[in-house]
């Protein structure tokens, strides 16, 4: 186990380094500079700014500087939000996105698993068609349509819930539901397929041949095996959800990290984009690592023994 963790750590560091390097040079291939867009600065001033920030130096030199700072935990300052460090911005916006993400997962996972299980148990019946319909709609109708609809019904028409900003529980309800729809939809589909797949396994027949009742078979034998593919997808799903959704945050004016990600790319805010990319990378790698360990708990065949 120790060896395994050590190995994984080394691989993780290499992954993050490759990600940082690749993103760094990829960003440089984008046309324009961070000072072009904002207030239509004169070209001379733009050049001055470029040299002030060291952006006129050779790319490789810039890269070495950036990586050197990164090693000290310094991700630099944002170009767009002057005087604010990238780390500051992450620390201010990430908790909001993570909060929203966790809420939506806390709803999306149980509901999705439940609907998927019901659909599989009632295959070919009305309940199944209803669950499949929900999941198809949830996957195919875009976030902003669902979000706008909810805003219109609960905010504009009935005035029951606030439709923008992030100031308390009631503010979180609509964005949470909007964000959880996609999770519910995809989990319903995955869980349904997985339950049906397990149903055809030989060991399900063994369980029946023992004289177990339907409930015992489902709870003891089917569910746990059906959860395996769900757990596999947990890492990336959690990571992406916690990192915030640009669309939902934009729609509900939530000052989360997802909004900054897209804005910083548009503004060519190099340090911001890189910082967020690396932060996301670390997060994803960590989430996958935790899931791999969890995976072994649910599926003894791949439990890590080394």
């Amino acid at each position, binding site marked *: 186990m120790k060896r395994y963790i050590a190995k994984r750590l080394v691989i993780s560091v290499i992954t993050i380094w490759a990600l940082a390097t690749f993103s760094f040079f990829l960003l440089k291939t984008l046309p324009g500079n961070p000072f072009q867009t904002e207030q239509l600065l004169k070209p001379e001033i733009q050049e001055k700014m470029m040299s002030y920030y060291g952006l006129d130096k050779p790319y490789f030199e810039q890269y070495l500087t950036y990586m050197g700072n990164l090693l000290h935990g310094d991700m630099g300052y944002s170009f767009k939000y002057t005087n604010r460090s990238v780390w500051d911005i992450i620390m201010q916006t990430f908790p909001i996105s993570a909060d929203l993400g966790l809420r939506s997962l806390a709803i999306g996972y149980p509901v999705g698993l439940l609907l998927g299980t019901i659909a599989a148990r009632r295959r070919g019946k009305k309940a199944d068609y209803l669950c499949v319909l929900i999941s198809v709609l949830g996957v195919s109708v875009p976030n902003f349509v669902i979000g706008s609809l909810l805003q219109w019904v609960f905010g504009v028409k009935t005035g029951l819930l606030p439709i923008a900003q992030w100031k308390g529980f009631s503010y979180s309800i609509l964005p949470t539901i909007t964000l959880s729809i996609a999770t519910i939809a995809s989990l319903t589909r995955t869980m349904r397929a997985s339950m049906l797949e397990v149903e055809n*396994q*030989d*060991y399900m*027949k*063994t*369980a*029946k*041949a*023992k*004289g*177990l*009742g*339907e409930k*015992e078979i489902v709870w*003891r*034998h089917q569910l*746990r*095996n059906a959860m*395996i593919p769900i757990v596999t997808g947990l890492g990336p799903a959690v990571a992406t959800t916690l990192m915030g959704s640009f669309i939902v945050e934009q729609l509900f004016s939530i000052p989360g990290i997802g909004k900054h990600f897209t804005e910083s790319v548009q503004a060519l805010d190099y340090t911001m984009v890189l910082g967020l990319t690396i932060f996301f990378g670390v997060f994803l790698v960590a989430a996958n690592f935790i899931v791999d360990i969890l995976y072994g708990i*649910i*599926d*003894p*065949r791949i439990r890590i023994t080394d």
Partner: protein
Amino acid sequence: MSILEVKDLRVSFHTYAGKVQAVRGVSFSVDKGKTLAIVGESGCGKSVTVQTIMKLTPTPPAFIEEGSILYEGTDIVGYSEKQMQKLRGKEFSMIFQDPMTSLNPTMRVGRQINENILKHMTLSSKEATKRTMEMMRLVGIANPEINMLRYPHTYSGGMRQRIMIAMGMAANPKILFADEPTTALDVTTQSQILDLINDLKKQFQMAVVLITHNLGVVARMADSVAVMYAGKVVETGTAREVFYEPKHPYTWGLLNSIPDTANMNGNRELPAIPGTPPDLFAPPKGCAFAARCPYAMKACIKAQPEETCLSDTHKVSCHLLDPRAPKVEPYHVKRQKTE
């Protein structure tokens, strides 16, 4: 005395493409504490027959169209799912063909055996665990204290089949159905597993219904034999009758192609008889074997042969047994002395 009697059982699968008549009138009986072997080519309905007895095939698509299944004299065809649950695992147990896939991969083997005990015996969980360990020892797994905590994937195929047997035997069933229990195992392991089943059968006075492809296994294990073809039993009798006085051309075909060097413990698949079995969506009006039978007559194509009783136990369905039929020589059947 027969503990299980199947009479004229018909089972169909209702599929989108039509009705598959998988079992088309099967009758046999199993005596208390004896072994019945069911032999026949792949797809002839052996598994469907035994799984129907335990009602393991889901309805739909499988439907019992006709027939009766008498367990200790009571017809269980109309039993509800609840009533069947009381029989499964307690009165009947089943061991499947592939031990690699028939155990739950995410549950410790001890718990899988234990589950059966707790379900059917009134024991405390402590006593049940004790019995689990006893059962593991009984099937030849040492150190059950440790080994019951292992997961199936840490065991070999043969050991997993032993665990399946321990599980099946856990509540002292009266009949053990073994559906090709050794087909997926290597020869040495096969032999050990068969010996184990035989020992347990004797020790616990349990009837065994053994499905197999391997005539060597039949000779070694069976008290009686049912030969199936295209969803019907074409010949049934004691092992002696079927091996030494076979009367059905299909049985001749099976026996005939045992290789010369046969030693009855070897691993031999049923020989290939030229031709293929009929389509069970639309089985022929006459004898289903007619297209492949060297003795086929006009009558064979017109009508299904009736069952002829040659003794209390020996029954054959073939037009050749009609007094008007020509007397034919069975094609050369090589017989081997068997114990």
